[in-house]
C-alpha cells in the first residue's frame, strides 16, 4: 500500500444496517485489504458529499449527478457530460493500492463511448501513461493499468460487449503479474503485460463516474450502485460469490414508461423582469400541474384542478443566471398522474428591454408634455409595434423621447446639433433613469445623419412637433428608415403649441426623400406619415433552402457586391446548438429573422437586430438536415414551427402562439410527428412521420460519415395540405414512403421521391437506411388538390449518403451523394393539366429525364459528400461545379474552395458559405471574400434575404479561437 495517507476513519458505521443491503453482508468477511467502499445510498449522502461507507475519501458530486432510490438498490445517476464523484485531485490524499489491486463495481452504462470511466486515477497523455482505470471502451468493459514493469498502460477489454442499460457486476484485478477482468462473475479477459508495482503519476484526479486525466474528461452516462477498491487481487471464486450474492437485487431492464408529452409546448416566456410564463396544451382536458425548481432548496408546485386543454402558469421571483428545472404532470389513459421528462429553463436567456427605475417624470405637467405624451401614443399606435429603434431628429427638451421610451419598448436615439440642448436633455433623461438603457442623445448635424441605413423602425422629430421646422434632409431620413414597415411621422398635433405648418411643405418634404405616397392629414396642424415598403428586388429566405423549391437561392437581386456590417448582437453562442449536427437554417420573411437555437426560438428584426421575442421551447429541436427536412418555415405574418405532432403558428412580430394544427389522423393509426413544413400561399404543406424518427443531434454528432446512424433518411408516411390560417384540411396524400429531404413545392406542384418497399412502410421507425432507396418513384401532386399529376419510376439507389430534389425553370433535379461522388439526374417537369377536378389516379408517365452527371467529390470530409445544390437562373451548382440546368453541360468547375463544413446559400448574384470564416463568392465578378474573425455553423448559416445577408450566430460550441461569436447582418455598402 502506498503510504500517501492513513486510511480514512470509518464513517457512519452505525448506519451499516441502513446502508448495506442484506446481500452484502456475507461478502464483508472477505473484505480484507479493502481500501475504500463507496456505497451510493441516501444515508451516505450529505448535501453534495458522498461519504465512503468504509475507508476511502469522501467524494464531491459534480455536475449532473443525482442519487436515486426509485428502482432496486440506490444508485447515483450520471448524465454523461461533466458529472462525476470526485474523490480528490491529489493522489497523495488518497490511499491507493500499490502492488496489487481489485476494483469492483455494480454499474449500468446507458451509453457506450470510446473512453468511459467508472473509477480511475490515471494520466494517459501520449507516452506518459500512469495509474489505473476501471471503465469501458466502446461497449466493452475494460481495466487499464500501468506498472513499473512495462511503464505504459495495458487496456484490457472484455471479450464480449456489455448490454447498455443493464446492471453489470464488473471487477478488475491485478496481482503484480496478471491483469484480469471479470464481468457478471465470469472471467472476461486477462493479460500478463504488466508486472511489478503499480506506476502512479505525480498528480491525477481520483474520480468515480468519469474517465479523467489532466486534459481529458469523459463522463459516464449511467448508474453506479457501489465501488470497492482493494489492495489485493480477489480470487475468481470470490468474485463469483459476490456476484451471485447480489445479482437478484438488481432489477432486470424493463421497457421505460413513456413520458408525458404535451400536445404543444411547453413554452417558457419572460413576461416581466423576474417573471415567466410556462404554458402548454393537451389534447384532452386535464388539471394543470407544474413543478419548478429554481434553487437547490426551492421547489415550487403549481396546480389548477380545473380540467382544461390550455395550461398556463405565471411564475415570479425567477433568479438571474440560473438553469432551472421543471416538469409537467399529465394524466394517462387510466387517469393516473404521468410526469413529463425534466425540462431546463435557462434564465440567462432574457432579452427583455431593461426597465428604467420608478422615478418621477423630469418634465413638468404642461400642455407641451401632454402633447408629447399624446403624440408618442399616436406614433406608437401608428407604427403598430412598440419594439426596435426610434430615431428622433432634432429635439427641444427631450420630452417626446422620454414619452416614446416610457410608453413602449423602443430604444430611442435622439440626434440634436445644439450642445447645450443635448446636455440638458441628457441630464433630464438621466434623472429619470432612462438615459443609456432606453434613450441615448447624440450630438450631430441633421444634414447628413451619422447612422447606417435601415435601422429606424420609427423616425420622428421633436422639433417638428414644437416648431414645425422639418429636418433638412428627407433623403437621409429615408435612408435610415427600416424597410418592411418602418414609419416616418412628422407631426404637429393640436395643442403642441407649434405654429400651424404647411401641409404642402410637409408633402414636398416626403416627396424629396423619395417617400412617395406619404399620408398627410390636417387636423389643427398637419401630420405626415410614411410607411416604407419592402425593398424592391429583395427576396425572402422563408424555408430551409430558401423557398419550397429547394433552390438554395433567395432570388434576391440586391445582395451583391461589397458587403458591410449592418448590425450585430444577440443571440450569441450560448443559446445556440453546437455547430456540428447540421441544424435547420434560420428563415426570414417580411423583414424578420427567425432563429432556431437549442430549444430557444427567436424572432428578430432583420434590419436592426432587435429581438422581438424569444421563447424557450424544449421540445423544438431537429438536426441532420441532409437526411431530413426543417421543422420551420416563415410567411409574411407567421413563423410555423413543428414539434411532436403539431404545428404552431407564431405571430412573427409579437411571438404570440396563435395557431395550432395537428397532423391529420386516419382512423385508429398511431399518432405521427409533424415532419415537413412548407408554406405556399394560403396553404401549409406538411408530412406525417412516425413518432421519434427525427434526428436531435444533442451528443456531438457530426453526421459527416457514412454510418447507418448518420445517413439513414427520415421518411414520411403521408403528405397533406392545410389552410395555413385555420388548419382546415385541404388534402391528404398517402402512397409510398416519402423521403423528407426530397419534398419540393414549386409551380403549383408537390414533388418528392417515394419508395414502394413494403418493409419501409411497415417499419416501426420512419428513420430508414436502405429500404427507401428501393422501388422508388418520382411523384408530382397538384398543390391545390393533392391529386397525383404524374409519377415515373426512378432508381436513386446510389445516393447512399443523401438525396435532394431542387426545382428551377421547369426542371427538377435530384442530387445524391455516395462514396464515389455526386450523382445528378435532371427531369423535365410536364405542365400541370388545366383541369384538377378529376379523380386521383395514378398517372404513370414515361421517363422525362433530361440528363445525368456523375463526378467524384472534392473531398470526403467536412460535408464533402452532402453538399446541397443551388439553382441560380439557368444554372445548377453542385459541389464545386456548375451545369446548364436544361442540358447538363458542365459550364464551370472553378467554384470557390469551401473549407468549412457548411453548405452554400445564394442570392441572384452571390454565394455565401463558410470557408475559414464567413465567405462570399460574387457570381458577377468571380471575386471571393472572407469576413475574417467570424464563422458560421456546419450547415446553412448565412441567408441572403431582404436585401441583406443574415448570419445568426451558429458557430456556438466551436472552442476554436474565432475572435467573434455574434449574430450579424451584412448589407451592400
Amino acid at each position: 500500500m502506498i503510504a500517501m495517507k492513513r486510511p480514512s476513519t470509518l464513517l457512519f458505521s452505525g448506519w451499516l444496517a441502513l446502508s448495506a443491503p442484506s446481500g452484502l453482508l456475507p461478502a464483508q468477511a472477505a473484505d480484507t485489504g479493502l481500501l475504500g467502499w463507496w456505497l451510493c445510498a441516501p444515508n451516505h449522502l450529505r448535501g453534495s458529499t458522498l461519504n465512503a461507507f468504509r475507508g476511502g475519501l469522501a467524494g464531491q458530486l459534480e455536475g449532473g449527478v443525482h442519487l436515486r432510490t426509485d428502482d432496486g438498490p440506490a444508485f447515483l445517476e450520471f448524465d454523461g457530460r461533466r458529472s462525476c464523484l470526485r474523490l480528490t485531485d491529489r493522489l497523495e490524499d488518497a490511499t491507493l493500492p500499490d502492488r496489487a489491486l481489485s476494483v469492483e463495481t455494480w454499474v449500468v452504462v446507458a451509453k457506450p463511448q470510446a473512453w468511459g470511466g467508472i473509477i480511475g486515477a490515471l494520466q494517459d497523455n501520449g507516452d506518459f501513461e500512469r495509474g489505473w482505470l476501471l471503465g469501458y471502451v466502446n461497449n466493452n468493459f475494460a481495466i487499464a493499468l500501468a506498472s513499473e514493469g512495462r511503464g505504459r498502460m495495458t487496456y484490457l477489454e472484455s471479450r464480449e460487449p456489455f448490454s447498455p442499460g443493464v446492471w453489470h457486476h464488473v471487477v478488475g484485478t491485478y496481482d503484480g503479474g496478471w491483469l484480469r477482468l471479470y464481468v457478471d462473475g465470469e472471467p472476461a479477459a486477462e493479460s500478463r503485460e504488466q508486472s511489478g508495482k503499480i506506476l502512479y503519476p505525480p498528480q491525477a484526479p481520483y474520480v468515480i463516474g468519469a474517465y479523467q486525466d489532466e486534459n481529458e474528461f469523459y463522463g459516464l452516462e449511467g448508474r453506479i450502485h457501489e465501488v470497492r477498491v482493494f489492495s489485493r487481487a480477489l480470487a475468481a471464486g470470490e468474485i463469483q460469490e459476490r456476484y451471485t450474492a447480489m445479482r437478484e437485487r438488481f432489477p432486470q431492464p424493463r421497457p421505460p414508461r413513456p413520458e408525458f408529452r404535451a400536445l404543444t409546448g411547453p413554452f417558457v416566456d419572460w413576461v416581466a423582469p423576474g417573471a415567466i410564463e410556462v404554458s402548454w396544451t393537451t389534447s384532452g382536458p386535464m388539471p394543470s400541474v407544474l413543478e419548478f425548481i429554481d434553487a437547490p432548496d426551492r421547489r415550487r408546485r403549481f396546480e389548477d384542478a380545473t380540467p382544461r386543454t390550455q395550461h398556463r402558469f405565471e411564475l415570479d421571483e425567477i433568479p438571474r443566471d440560473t438553469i432551472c428545472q421543471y416538469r409537467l404532470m399529465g394524466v394517462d389513459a387510466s387517469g393516473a398522474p404521468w410526469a413529463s421528462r425534466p425540462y431546463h429553463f435557462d434564465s440567462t436567456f432574457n432579452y427583455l428591454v431593461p426597465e428604467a427605475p420608478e422615478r418621477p417624470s423630469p418634465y413638468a405637467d404642461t400642455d407641451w408634455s401632454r402633447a408629447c405624451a399624446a403624440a408618442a401614443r399616436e406614433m406608437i399606435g401608428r407604427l403598430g409595434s412598440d419594439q426596435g429603434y426610434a430615431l428622433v431628429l432634432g429635439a427641444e427638451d427631450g420630452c417626446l423621447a422620454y414619452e416614446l421610451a416610457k410608453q413602449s419598448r423602443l430604444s430611442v436615439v435622439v440626434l440634436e446639433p445644439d450642445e447645450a440642448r443635448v446636455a440638458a436633455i441628457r441630464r433630464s433623461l438621466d434623472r429619470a433613469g432612462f438615459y443609456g438603457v432606453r434613450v441615448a442623445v447624440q450630438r450631430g448635424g441633421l444634414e447628413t445623419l451619422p447612422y447606417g441605413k435601415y435601422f429606424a423602425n420609427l423616425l420622428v422629430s421633436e422639433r417638428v412637433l414644437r416648431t414645425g421646422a422639418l429636418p433638412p434632409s428627407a433623403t437621409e431620413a429615408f435612408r435610415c428608415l427600416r424597410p418592411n414597415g418602418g414609419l416616418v411621422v412628422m407631426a404637429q398635433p393640436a395643442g403642441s403649441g407649434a405654429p400651424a405648418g404647411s401641409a404642402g411643405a410637409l408633402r414636398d418634404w416626403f416627396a424629396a426623400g423619395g417617400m412617395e405616397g406619404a399620408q398627410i392629414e390636417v387636423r389643427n396642424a398637419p401630420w405626415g406619415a410614411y410607411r416604407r415598403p419592402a425593398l424592391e428586388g429583395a427576396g425572402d429566405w422563408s424555408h430551409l433552402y430558401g423557398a419550397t423549391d429547394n433552390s438554395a437561392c433567395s432570388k434576391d437581386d440586391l445582395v451583391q457586391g461589397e458587403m458591410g456590417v449592418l448590425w450585430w448582437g444577440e443571440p450569441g453562442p450560448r443559446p445556440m446548438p453546437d455547430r456540428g449536427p447540421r441544424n435547420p437554417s434560420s428563415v426570414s420573411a417580411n423583414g424578420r429573422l427567425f432563429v432556431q437555437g437549442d430549444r430557444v426560438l427567436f424572432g428578430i428584426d432583420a434590419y436592426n437586430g432587435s429581438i422581438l421575442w424569444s421563447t424557450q421551447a424544449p421540445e423544438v429541436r431537429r438536426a441532420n438536415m441532409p437526411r431530413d427536412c426543417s421543422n420551420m418555415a416563415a410567411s409574411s405574418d407567421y413563423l410555423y414551427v413543428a414539434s411532436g405532432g403539431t404545428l404552431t403558428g407564431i405571430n412573427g412580430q409579437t411571438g404570440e402562439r396563435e395557431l395550432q394544427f395537428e397532423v391529420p389522423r386516419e382512423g385508429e393509426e398511431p399518432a405521427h410527428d409533424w415532419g415537413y413544413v412548407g408554406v405556399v400561399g394560403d396553404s401549409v404543406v406538411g408530412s406525417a412521420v412516425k413518432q421519434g424518427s427525427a434526428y436531435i443531434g444533442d451528443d456531438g454528432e457530426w453526421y459527416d460519415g457514412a454510418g447507418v446512424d448518420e445517413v439513414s433518411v427520415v421518411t414520411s408516411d403521408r403528405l397533406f395540405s392545410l389552410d395555413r390560417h385555420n388548419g382546415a384540411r385541404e388534402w391528404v396524400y398517402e402512397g409510398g414512403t416519402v423521403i423528407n429531404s426530397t419534398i419540393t413545392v414549386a409551380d403549383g406542384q408537390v414533388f418528392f421521391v417515394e419508395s414502394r418497399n413494403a418493409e419501409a412502410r411497415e417499419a416501426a421507425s420512419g428513420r430508414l437506411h436502405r429500404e427507401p432507396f428501393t422501388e422508388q418513384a418520382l411523384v408530382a401532386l397538384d398543390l391545390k388538390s393533392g391529386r397525383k399529376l404524374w409519377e415515373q419510376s426512378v432508381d436513386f439507389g446510389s445516393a447512399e449518403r443523401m438525396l435532394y430534389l431542387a426545382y428551377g425553370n421547369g426542371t427538377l433535379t435530384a442530387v445524391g451523394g455516395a462514396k464515389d461522388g455526386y450523382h445528378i439526374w435532371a427531369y423535365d417537369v410536364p405542365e400541370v393539366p388545366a383541369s384538377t377536378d378529376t379523380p386521383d389516379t395514378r398517372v404513370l408517365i414515361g421517363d422525362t429525364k433530361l440528363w445525368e452527371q456523375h463526378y467524384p467529390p472534392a473531398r470526403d470530409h467536412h460535408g464533402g459528400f452532402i453538399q446541397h445544390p443551388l439553382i441560380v437562373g439557368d444554372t445548377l451548382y453542385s459541389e464545386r461545379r456548375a451545369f446548364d440546368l436544361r442540358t447538363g453541360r458542365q459550364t464551370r468547375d472553378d467554384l470557390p474552395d469551401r473549407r468549412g463544413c457548411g453548405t452554400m446559400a445564394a442570392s441572384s448574384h452571390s454565394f455565401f458559405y463558410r470557408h475559414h470564416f464567413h465567405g462570399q463568392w460574387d457570381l458577377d465578378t468571380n471575386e471571393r471574400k472572407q469576413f475574417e474573425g467570424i464563422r458560421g455553423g456546419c450547415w446553412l448559416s448565412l441567408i441572403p434575404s431582404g436585401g441583406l445577408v443574415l448570419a445568426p450566430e451558429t458557430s456556438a460550441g466551436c472552442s476554436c479561437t474565432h475572435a467573434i461569436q455574434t449574430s450579424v447582418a451584412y448589407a451592400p455598402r
Partner: protein
Amino acid sequence: MESQMFLERARREATVFGVSAKVDRRHPPGRWGRRGRRLTPGLAFGLACGLGVGAVTAADWPTYGGDDARSGVSPGTIAPPLSQAWQWRSPHRPRPAWGGEAKADLYNKVYDMPHRQDFDYAFHVVAAEGAVLFGSSADDKVYCLDAATGEERWSFFTEGPVRLAPTLKGGRAYVGSDDGYVYCLRLADGGLVWKHRPGPRETRIPGNGRVISPWPVRTGVIVRDGLAYCGAGMFPSEGVYLCALDARTGAERWKVVNNDLPAQGYLLASDTRLYVPSGRNNPVVYDRADGSRIRVVEGAGGTYALLTGGELVFGPGKAGQLGVVPDGESDQLATFAGNHMIVTPARSFLHADNELSALDRARYLELARERKTVLARRDALRKQLQQVERAGDAAARTRLRGELTEVGGAIDRLSREMEGCVLWRQPCRHPLSLILAGDVLYAGGVKSVAAHGTDTGEKVWEAPVDAEALGLAAAGGRLFVSTDSGVIHCFAPPATASVGRPAADSAAGFLLTTTSR
C-alpha cells in the same frame, strides 16, 4: 376523472427530479470549474522575469490592474481588518457586450467553457489624487467619485457604453467608448480636453443592443511616454485600428489598420511592446514605436492578461487555463489551470476556483529548466527509437527503451519536486478576482471579499459585498470592490474610514451606506 383526486395522486407521485444550477457566464462550473485548480507540474511554468513594468505609488491605482502590465499589484499594504467606508450603486446593472460562451463543444466534449471576453461585467475602478473613476456600460458616463466619501465629484457623458476603466495620468483621465472615441478629461472637473476618433468615419449602427460605432474603443487606453495608445474596431472586414496619440493634444502619432483580428480587452505595454487582446482570439504584439505588428501569440484565446517582465500570461482559453508566452516568442512555454496570477520577484500566487497557492519561483524555474532539458532528451530518444524500430535493430531498441524508462523516471522526479515548490495552498472560496496590496492578497468572490496573508495564505479577513466581486483596486489605503450589480464598495481600515454623507438624489448613482469609524 376527479380532478382533485388526480392532484392528490400527482402530489404523491412527485419525486425530486433534479436541482437547479447557477450559471456563471464568466467562470462556469464544469470540467475544470468549481474545484481546485492547481499547478500542473507536468508542464513547465515559465515565469522567468521580474515584476510588471510601470511601478505605481501606494496612493494610486491609475489604470486597470494597477499598471501597464495589469499586474494587479499595489506596493502599499492595506492591512485588514477593513470596514466599509461607503458604497455607490448605479441605477442600472452593467450591460456587458457579450453574453458568454456556448454551453458545450460537443464534438470535443468540452463543457462549460469559460468566458473569453468578460472585461465589462463590472464597473472597474481606477484611483488617483483622492478620486475614484470608472465608466458605465449602462448610462454611457464616466464617473468621478471622492475616494474618501464616495460622493460624486463629476460625471461626463460619452455617446456610447464605456466598457473599460479609464487611465489616469498627469491630472487627466483617458477613456474609450463604444461611440468610437477616445476622450481625454480633466481629472479635476471632468472637462473635455480633447477627443479623437480612431475609426475612419462618423457613423453608428446597432451593435450589442445599442447604436454605436462600428469601431468601438474596447481596449482601454494606455498612456506611456507621452502617448496614449488605443484600439478601435470589432469586425476585421470593417478594419480594426490601433493608434498612438499625443497624450497632451490627441494628435495622431501613428495609426495602423488590421484586417484579421478585432481589438477587445485591456491593452498591455512594456518598454517597447504593445499587447492587444483580440477577444476570443489571442493577443497580438506590436512595436510601440510605430505600430508595426510583431506577432500573434499562440494560445487558446481570452482577454485576461498580464505581463511579467517580458512574458505574457493570458487566458482563460477553452478550459480555464492561463498560457505563458516568453518574450520574443509566439509559442506558449507553459499552461496551467487557474483564473488569475500575481507575480512578485520571489513568489507567484495562483488563484483557482477553490484554492490560492504560492510558488517558490526561483526553485521552480530552476527545476523547470532542468525538466525542459530532460523533455528534449526524451523527444530525441523517441525519434531514435522510431528509427531503430523501423530498422529492426532489436538491441538498440532495448537500449533506447531502457533509456526512455530512465528519462521517464527523471521526469516524474522533477515533476514531484516542482510540485514541492508550492510553498502553501489554502482553500479559497473567492475565485472571481485577485490583487496584491503590499503583503496582503485580496480575493473577490460571490457576495464577499477576503484577504489572505502572503506568508501562509491563510484567510485573515472577509467582508460581505452585495453581489459578485469582479473588480478590485487598492489605492490610498482603501480597497475598492466592483460587483456585477453595478455597486462600488469602498473598504478602509477602521481608523481611516471616513464618515460619508448620503449623496444627493443625483442623476444616476446613489451613495447607499456609510460606516463611521
